[in-house]
């Protein structure tokens, strides 16, 4: 049973965004990390890069496969989680504590098209 946290917004490609004021912390869900298996590399954008909702901003590589990361929201990257460079496995340990990028949102109304915890739970069929 995957861990799903109330209050976060979820995308169909299994990313979440956690909102704090005008910023959003983007990472992959517990379901995604479980499906991927042990993560060995996270390809992240650079600070000040623009990300667009639904568009790829990086990739996560596991022992099974490499998968694109799609941003659930549009905006500017203000921080990347550099701890993942040294220890990509943090994504497996706690994907919600170990977000990948912090984005300054350009359009908060995009959150309306994402799923809440319950909708995401139904989406992954658990």
């Amino acid at each position, binding site marked *: 049973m995957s861990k799903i946290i109330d209050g976060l917004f979820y995308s169909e490609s299994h990313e979440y965004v956690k909102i704090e004021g005008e910023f959003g912390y983007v990472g992959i869900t517990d379901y995604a990390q479980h*499906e991927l298996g*042990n993560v*060995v*590399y996270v390809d992240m954008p650079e600070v000040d890069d623009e990300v667009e909702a639904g568009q790829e901003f990086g990739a996560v*590589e596991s*022992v*099974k*496969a490499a998968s694109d990361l799609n941003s659930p929201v549009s905006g500017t990257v203000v921080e990347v989680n550099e701890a993942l460079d040294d220890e*990509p*496995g943090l994504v497996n340990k706690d994907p919600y504590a170990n977000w990948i990028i912090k984005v300054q949102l350009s359009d908060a109304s995009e959150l309306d098209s994402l799923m809440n915890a319950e909708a995401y739970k139904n989406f992954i069929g658990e």
Partner: protein
Amino acid sequence: MNNQYYSKLIFELSHEGRRGYSLPDNEFKEYDLASMPQNLLRQQEPDLPQVDELTVVRHYTNMSNNNFGVDTGFYPLGSCTMKYNPKINEEICAMPAFSGLHPLQQENTVQGALEVYYNLQRSLAEISGLSEFTLNPYAGAHGELTGLMIMRSYHMSRNDSKRTKVIVPDSAHGTNPASAAVCGLEVVVVKSRPDGTVDVDDLQPLLGDDIAGMMMTNPNTLGIFEHDIAKIAQLVHDCGGLMYYDGANLNPMLGKCRPGDLGFDIMHINLHKTFSTPHGGGGPGSGPVGVRAGLEQFLPNPRVKRTEGDDWYQYSIENTDSALGSISSFLGNFAVIMRAYTYILTLGRENLAQVGPLATLNANYIKESLKDCYELPLKGVCKHEFVFDGLKDKSTGVTTLDVAKRLLDYGFHAPTIYFPLLFHEAMMIEPTENESKETLDAFIEVMRKIAHEAATDPELVKSAPHHTPVRRLDDTKAALKQIVTFAELRQAEL
């Protein structure tokens, strides 16, 4: 059989001053190193192993005993067509008249070799329904890159520079998007329908005047024949794009169905899959590229041409003004070309057309015999390979990886796992046409046994393999802490 696992590195056998050769007196003048740029000069001696000849021979012979290959056991590695490499191929290409050739020899002294090259070009053109081939690319992915460069050259020759996108199905081999990216093209993914074939409705909106072409594997990586191929080819051609055929799954089509007749414009063939030349560690590979009539001028250099009169003919190596120039040194991997040509002549037209039906029969036999224990996501008749989505009963938590590891305990090579990405627990099985019913039955029995173990003693499967010289390897650590040279190993041990 030697049960001792040999795990030494040749560096560990090294002793200062030991040697297995002596060089003749140097008849050339000493090179003046002072004239070389100093930053290009090595500052210390290279760390080379110092060993005597017998030690070298024993080392590599012992290492070779660790190998698992088609010659030692069943190798159902999906998508790879690990078919038997007939020994007559080796006999022919080892003939001194071929093995002793030098690529810079005069044309008139290598007419036989050029004839082999030319004839294989013609055979592949006939088998695939295309006009002309180059045998120069060294591997499948190299062929893909060459084919995409041809596609781009074709558009550029018409001053159509806005075609920068290539459509690739989501079931494609990873090399397709990789080759497109290396060629400077942008990849657009088209989705599959629930039956595993390309979704024509999803394809249509992607088409436009920015599409250079579409890459397809048919039968696709799920072993399913793309039944809408004629329509897809027409749609792509109507928007001005070209159709590229990835020859990875050509095996079931041999002598039955030709990519050229299906509407493909460019293709590559993996000689190391379909035409029985060694594959993988036993390589090298070869990825000939063919084009339909009208695209011949875009093939890379050099080309082999045949000229003939009433009572004579001769072969020549020619360089055309192809925009591609050369994509390889000389004429590709000639010894591989020689083996593939031998295979085609050994089987002949009639027997070549039996390859596909037998490969298809073998794959379907395994699929039908195991579908009550393993999840079969796509029902119906497959071609040369098929995909299970893990065990049918997943309640004990045994994964596809565990089943693959357990197979090693029973002496079989594991199938391809976790590819294609369409299914979470993919297990891709391709038996090839060579295997006897006894071998297939033995494999089926073991697969059923593993499914039974997974239900009754899941820990046994989860901790497999138990009987191999090394146990389950830590692939996460291998990816994170790569040690690929002896110097790094010594560093790590300090």
